[in-house]
């Protein structure tokens, strides 16, 4: 019998289609007896569906670094002390 930790890892792998057949079987068996993991597995699958439905986009690290550089090179960057709220002074 596998531990709940192991079951959670397999469940996560399944979300990315990276679990082997034997892992899937082990998880199935575990879910039959463990209610906590069953709930987790259900929510986890739901999260994957939501992520897929939302059609998420993200910038790559390189693109983010490029934007950061652009911001840094921008000569008009104010001194950090200038941009606090006036009433805090």
């Amino acid at each position, binding site marked *: 019998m596998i531990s709940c930790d192991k079951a*959670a*890892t397999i469940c*996560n*792998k399944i*979300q*990315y289609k*990276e679990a082997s057949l034997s892992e899937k079987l082990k998880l199935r068996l575990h879910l039959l007896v463990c209610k906590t993991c069953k709930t987790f597995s259900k*929510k*986890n699958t*739901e*999260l994957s569906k*939501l*992520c897929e*439905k*939302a*059609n*998420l*986009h*993200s*910038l*790559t*690290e390189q*693109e*983010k670094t*490029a*934007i*950061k550089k*652009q*911001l840094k090179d*921008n000569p*008009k*960057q*104010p001194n*950090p002390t*200038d*941009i*606090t*709220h006036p*009433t*805090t002074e």
Partner: protein
Amino acid sequence: MAPHRLQPDNWVDNYADYLYNYAVGRVSNSEVAKDLVSETFLSALKSAKNFKGDAAERTWLIAILKRKVIDYYRKINSNKGKAEVRISYASGTDTDGDWLEEQVADPFSNFENSAIENEELGLAIQKCISKLPKKQALVFNMKTIQGISTDDICNELEINPSNLWVMIHRARTSLMDCLNENWF
């Protein structure tokens, strides 16, 4: 409530993906969306002095981005006449030559609603991702959104697969909690 402060150094890490998702939803072009995001940050830096501290940073930045999106459409429509809405026969499709009446939206379709709902969902997820610790957010992004393989991520970040799965697990658990109230 304490007034909000701006922390430009963290902008890209905290809000770039959130703003990018919003922009992609509006302009449907990833290159343009990327430019709009960086222009937003630049304008925000320039007008940082005018930030009154009564809105959260995120709200303030999204307000700037909204203006940028509007400006973008103004610019591409600036030639006179382009701004008109013109309806023509859908040429080159099966319906070529059909009456316009046959092209009206299906009143029972909930396609538009689900598009709006999905965009809200996307922003909600991005907001939750930006609350994660930086490394977890990065791993989750690479794995889930960019779909990079486990091996490649491990090589790039110099971690081992079990590290990766632990981080993914933590990220997913936090996201479930974060989204729990509204979306499950």
